[in-house]
């Protein structure tokens, strides 16, 4: 199709006085493929748009170049306008002559403005329409992990009428709340019952994910349940695989007969009937190994208060910093102190030694400036908060990066709170770091919202922007290895040829693949090599 271009220059109400619009208009008029150059005062307002519409229609142009303010203000608007005029919105090329030209410099900048418009003109010549089509999505979600988080998400989704498959590695649902029952109350049983009763929730226990292929709206998941292999498709996948805690024997002098226990064990002891010989003195200790976790503070405060209430023991806490930056924790801390719990804060690691059944903690308290020695009947040791078993394997299987502590989800503010670098794969709850119950609930609602937006309409829009020329593709797998969103895959083109293919739904439009392709087989419409080089050449030609 013969290129026929219309150029609209906007002088922003006549305020861009350091640009000589008639002059650059004159320079542009005689260019090849240019049908007309219009100078407007207010393209973005009703009047300007009206004039523009009639010009586009009467001149029957097929490329639109607009030199005006930043695309931030006008790109979306003009794209909508073009669509209304049945012109593909990709046939629009903008020159930012306000923010990045008139406002950025003093004195006459007509020459620069002309250069910017020429760049846009040369790019516009090479633009091609970008097609959009609707693709059906599978209205079914896989939730991995049958703990509190996974069950709650399944229940919420079932209320939306979205079918869920809830998968659990263990033979029963419940996850960590089984252990921490004392803190969560009887809602666990009720929750499991509700999940089991829900018609739209299918439960698969003793199973694990062994493969995930495909893209958002259409993931193919391989599940292994004993010897049985299950192949299913889902529109989205939610991982709620939780965490694990660990008290390493090497870190504490743990031996038979010595009363050093984990925080979880304490929770269990507190469940049981009160022992006859109540421990008189109990020491809690944390911040020895991991100073960046909220979990030990919460467990200690809850544990210390429960001990005070049930056993009336003397309670001492040794730590570096009390992590009070969650809702209500400062209050809990104050209550503990009011109940007589004594806090010692150390900078250097205390020494812990076992003497028969008693445990001695020696520390230098920085607030008192004195050495403190305490002999306890029972010491509740810090638990390391760790990614749950299999996190590493699953993350490499999914091609999802973990954070510096090995939890799911890369430390990148763009993907918070529940998303990941792969569209349609979500991580919620403590499998993405220690959140605490308040933040876990927020995660659950967040992911439900994301899935509702994604699956409820039944279809998603697919924009065909990054394309592989299968004739040029040499199937070197480079794009598949570099794509940060796992959008590239190898497909069979015909009986002989295999070539890479970019899934438009999974693609997040970064263009990394187009840059690395050694065969130059990938075209990112709008930012193709030709279109970028045309702009460089336009600068060179002036």
């Amino acid at each position, binding site marked *: 199709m013969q290129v026929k271009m219309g150029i609209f220059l906007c002088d922003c109400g006549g305020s861009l006085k350091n640009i000589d619009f008639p002059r650059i208009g004159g320079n542009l008029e005689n260019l090849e493929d240019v049908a007309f150059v219009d100078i407007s005062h207010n393209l973005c307002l009703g009047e300007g748009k009206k004039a523009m519409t009639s010009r586009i229609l009467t001149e029957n142009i097929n490329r639109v170049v607009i030199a005006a303010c930043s695309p931030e203000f006008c790109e979306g608007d003009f794209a909508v306008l073009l669509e209304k005029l049945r012109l593909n919105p990709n046939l629009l090329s903008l020159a930012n002559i306000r923010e990045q030209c008139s*406002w950025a410099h003093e004195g006459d900048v007509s020459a620069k403005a002309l*250069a910017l418009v020429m760049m846009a003109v040369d790019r516009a010549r090479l633009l091609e329409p970008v097609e959009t089509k609707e693709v059906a999505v599978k209205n079914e979600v896989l939730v991995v992990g049958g703990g509190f988080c996974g069950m709650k998400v399944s229940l919420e989704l079932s209320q939306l009428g979205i079918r869920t498959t809830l998968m659990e590695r263990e033979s029963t649902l419940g996850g960590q709340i089984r252990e921490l029952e004392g803190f969560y109350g009887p809602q666990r049983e009720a929750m499991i019952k509700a999940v089991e009763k829900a018609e739209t929730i299918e439960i698969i226990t003793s199973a694990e994910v062994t493969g995930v292929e495909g893209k958002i709206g259409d993931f193919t998941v391989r599940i292994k349940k004993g010897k049985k292999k299950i192949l299913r498709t889902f529109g989205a996948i939610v991982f709620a695989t939780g965490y694990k805690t660990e008290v390493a024997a090497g870190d504490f002098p743990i031996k038979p007969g010595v009363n050093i226990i984990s925080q979880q064990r304490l929770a269990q002891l507190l469940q049981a009937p009160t022992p006859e010989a109540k421990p008189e003195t109990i020491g809690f200790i944390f911040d020895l190994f991991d100073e960046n976790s909220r979990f030990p503070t919460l467990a200690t405060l809850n544990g210390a208060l429960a001990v005070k209430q049930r056993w009336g023991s003397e309670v001492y806490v040794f730590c570096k910093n009390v992590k009070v930056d969650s809702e209500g924790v400062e209050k809990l801390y104050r209550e503990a102190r009011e109940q007589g719990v004594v806090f010692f804060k150390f900078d250097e690691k205390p020494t812990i030694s076992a003497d028969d059944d008693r445990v001695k903690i020696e520390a230098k308290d920085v607030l008192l400036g004195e050495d403190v020695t305490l002999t306890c009947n029972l010491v509740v040791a810090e638990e390391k908060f760790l990614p749950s078993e299999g996190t590493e394997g699953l993350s490499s299987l999914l091609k999802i990066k973990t954070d510096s502590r090995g939890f799911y989800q890369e430390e*990148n503010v763009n993907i918070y709170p529940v998303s990941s670098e792969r569209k349609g794969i979500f991580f919620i709850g403590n499998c993405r770091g220690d959140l605490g119950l308040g933040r876990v609930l927020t995660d659950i609602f967040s992911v439900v919202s994301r899935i509702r937006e994604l699956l409820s309409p039944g279809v998603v829009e697919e924009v065909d922007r990054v394309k592989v020329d299968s004739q040029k593709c040499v199937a070197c797998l480079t794009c598949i290895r570099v794509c940060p969103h796992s959008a590239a895959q190898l497909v069979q083109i015909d009986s002989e040829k295999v070539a890479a293919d970019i899934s438009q739904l999974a693609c997040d439009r970064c*263009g990394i693949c187009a840059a690395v392709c050694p065969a130059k087989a990938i075209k*990112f419409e709008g930012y193709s090599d030709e279109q970028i080089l045309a702009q460089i050449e336009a600068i*060179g030609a002036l």
Partner: protein
Amino acid sequence: MNGEIIAFCCEHSAYVAADAAGKQGLHCPENLRIIRVPCAGRVDIIHILKAMEEGAAAVLVLGCEDGLCQHLTGNIRARERVNYSEMLLKEVGIDGRRVAMFNLAANAPHKFIQAVNEMNERMKELGEGK
């Protein structure tokens, strides 16, 4: 071309910062020519070399801060490519300092101006054009 600085700007960060600089009236050298890219990771070595061939005094690649790229590795790859281009230019007798990568966030117009000015100063030292 008369000694322009061609700056490839990521539309998530540097391009927005450039706009913000204009809005705040922070001035930058007039020889700056911005080419908008979807991510610094889109900028290919050939784009940098072609810019030099066309007579640019310098080429800037401006991407998101390290650890902030929406595509996780786009800015890291861009930096590697800039380093590689430096080497390729040195091979053919052109000062590698004519190519540089800077990282900045969308809300850092001052950093944008600083990067462009730094490059402009460097050009004065190296001589405009090649």
